[in-house]
């Protein structure tokens, strides 16, 4: 490794060098880096080439390579009073594609992780129904089920950035999101089983954890696309994601995706419980607060480079990568700027483009080694364009905490180090 040049010459230098040395530029051939001596990683026999590794079943449930030990969820201790009612963050800068591995999905608990055996869990449906029902988990597995890929974003994601550039890492500014494949029973099938009365216009979803998490959800959404999910990315839910069963409320704020779902009550008005009054309401500058701001606005962020993932290779070919999503549809287009918004370029979308799911974009460019101001701007399938932070502040003020979907800026210096900044 030490023999490998850390600062490779830029592509432009390569071309110039090639032209002078061999005239090969005219033929379009590039001259690659040369080293003084052979790489011992090649010339010397490495232990993994000689000795036997672990057999099967060394880890009956596999883990990432031990060389990836940095790739973990992280918390910001000062944000909350203790670790039980708290949050941690998905390491977006370490991920590729659109799917979040189960062990890296951010956690948000209000009274810690409930530990519920599959066989001991019950789901009740009561209220304005013809037949109040109780289902076991095994009952739920006999209903027809669907597989859907959705992002789940906490309404408070990026909430620390309203007043200015605060947290220096995409994990902390944007990591209250994950995107997984859910397997679940459409909620409408369970509601049909209980027989919702015509007066039933709202429902209350309640968790079995010690916070008894509750949220009011309009019937229209419940009958549209909500799932009662038992699996994520092919395996049963992780405990911290609501094992054995959680509600999936596609495109809407994460707090509504009640984990450890134990009860659904059908009613004729909203309940106005704590998580939809005291919390998850958006205070505007005039002292009035918006309530029931369910949908997550279109948003994007560059994950690489970013403060936790600087450019380490020097000038030359550089891959800029990021993610985008919208609670109102798909992301057909993302624009990227590397000069703070003087010139924008359409990014290249890559991977599945699914409704209310995370999208991956790339922009490849030759870095000239000068400072950069990186931004991305998502367009969703409704025509909505991700606003700047200042545009949002004009409407929302500085104190609404939730639903900050503004354009993020990273400043990259000559050394390739990135920083969370605001520009004017």
């Amino acid at each position, binding site marked *: 490794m030490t023999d490998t040049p850390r600062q490779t010459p830029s592509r432009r230098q390569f071309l110039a060098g090639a032209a002078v040395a061999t005239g090969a530029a005219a033929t379009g051939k590039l001259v690659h880096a040369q080293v003084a001596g052979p790489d011992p990683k090649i010339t010397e026999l490495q232990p993994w080439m000689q000795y036997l590794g672990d057999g099967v079943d060394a880890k009956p449930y596999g883990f990432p390579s031990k060389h990836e030990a940095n790739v973990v969820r992280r918390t910001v201790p000062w944000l909350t009073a203790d670790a039980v009612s708290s949050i941690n963050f998905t390491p977006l800068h370490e991920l590729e594609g659109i799917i979040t591995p189960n062990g890296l999905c951010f956690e948000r608990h209000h009274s810690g992780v409930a530990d519920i055996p599959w066989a001991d869990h019950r789901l009740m449906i009561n209220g304005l129904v013809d037949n109040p029902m109780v289902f076991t988990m095994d009952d739920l597995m006999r209903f027809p089920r669907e597989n859907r890929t959705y992002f789940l974003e906490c309404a408070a994601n990026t909430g620390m950035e309203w007043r200015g550039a605060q947290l220096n890492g995409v994990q902390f500014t944007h990591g209250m999101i994950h995107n997984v494949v859910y397997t679940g029973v459409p909620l409408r*099938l369970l509601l049909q089983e209980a027989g919702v009365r015509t007066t039933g216009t709202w429902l209350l979803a309640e968790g079995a954890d010690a916070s008894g998490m509750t949220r009011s959800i309009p019937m229209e959404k419940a009958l549209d696309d909500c799932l009662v999910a038992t699996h994520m990315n092919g395996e049963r839910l992780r405990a911290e994601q609501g094992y054995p069963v959680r509600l999936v409320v596609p495109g809407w704020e994460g707090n509504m995706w009640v984990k450890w779902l134990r009860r659904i*009550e059908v009613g004729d008005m909203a309940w106005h419980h704590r998580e939809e*009054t005291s919390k998850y309401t958006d205070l505007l500058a005039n002292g009035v607060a918006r309530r029931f701001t369910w949908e997550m606005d279109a948003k994007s962020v560059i994950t690489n480079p970013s403060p936790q993932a600087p450019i380490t290779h020097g000038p030359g070919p550089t891959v800029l990568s990021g993610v985008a999503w919208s609670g109102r549809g798909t992301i057909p287009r993302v*624009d990227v700027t590397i000069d703070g918004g003087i010139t924008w370029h359409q990014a290249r979308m890559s991977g599945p483009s*699914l409704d209310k799911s995370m999208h991956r974009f790339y922009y490849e460019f030759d870095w000239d080694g000068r400072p950069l101001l990186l931004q991305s701007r998502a367009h969703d399938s409704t025509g909505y*364009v991700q606003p700047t932070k200042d545009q949002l502040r004009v409407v929302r003020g500085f104190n609404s905490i939730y639903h900050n979907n503004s354009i993020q800026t990273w400043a990259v210096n000559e050394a390739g180090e990135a920083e969370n900044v605001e520009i004017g």
Partner: protein
Amino acid sequence: MSKSVEMMKKLALCSALVVVGAGHALAETPAPARDGGFGLGRTALPEEIAAWDIDIRPDGLGLPVGSGDVYTGEELYIDNCAACHGDFGEAVGRWPVLAGGRGTLDGEDPHKTIGSYWPYLSTVWDYVHRAMPYGGAQSLSNDDVYAITAYLMYLNDMVDDDFELSNENFLEVAMPNEAAFLMDDRATTELTAFAAEPCMENCRDSVAITARATVLSVTPETEGAAATPAAVVETATAPAPAAAPEPVASAGPDPELVAAGEALFRQCASCHQIGDGANNRTGPMLNNTFGAPVGSHDGFRYSPAFVAARDAGMVWDEASLTAFLQDPRGTIAGNRMAFRGLRSPEEAAAMIAYLRATGGEAP
């Protein structure tokens, strides 16, 4: 021969499926309903619904019969709530502030409390009943919840000190900030405004950085996040020599037990500190505890239950700690510690070893 033909057929089939699948990724049949339902699950019994259907609505639906006054509420609040929310709802540390804040919502630094922000009193009753006290959810009686709610109204200058709240007068209460909420209006205030085709070239003359996160320095350290991937690879080359087993000192604590206790202490650390610089927080600091009388740290306001145990001569020793750590509420009934207890005598032994090794031993 036939095997390879089979395989080629399979491969051909696979690639055909891939091509077809790619073209029809979104055309999917929804999970089918069945007329009359599936006949799965069973009817919920009235007593089961009664046990779980505890939610309260602003129109009073769900409110049980009961009552409680401000004086009773104050006592209950001091015992159950003040450790986190402060004696007057002002809050300890970053726990939620419950009182004050009127007139601040349109200012620079709004204080969103029950009195200044919450639109409905039913939310207070429902939340206290379903989720509080923290770590002891649903342990308060209906009358307790009425009393604590009455005291929270008193702390917010909504009622006098002789007020009693009950299911009879509950709906007469109007919260000061009820009118200051509106339905999500983004469809008219934002969605159309943020739908213009944006500029792509020569969009501005100049750019300047106006704020930097590194100036604040509030980001947690993410050690080795990207700086030195090379070092990780290097460590893979030579296996470390086996460490010689250290002789176990007969008198000292078992290091394995201490390490196990340290891991368990994470469950306690949100409320308790131990070691150099430890202070009383939500719970008392734990230095000089082992061998000392129960409830003897200066400056910590113990529950009446702890004071009574101290007055009765209870001392923290191996036996009393082993019992208390596994069943805090059963061992000292009525104490305020919101922890269900360790799971085994082994865990208790590890915790005691950790406490004694890190400053918990009384001189």
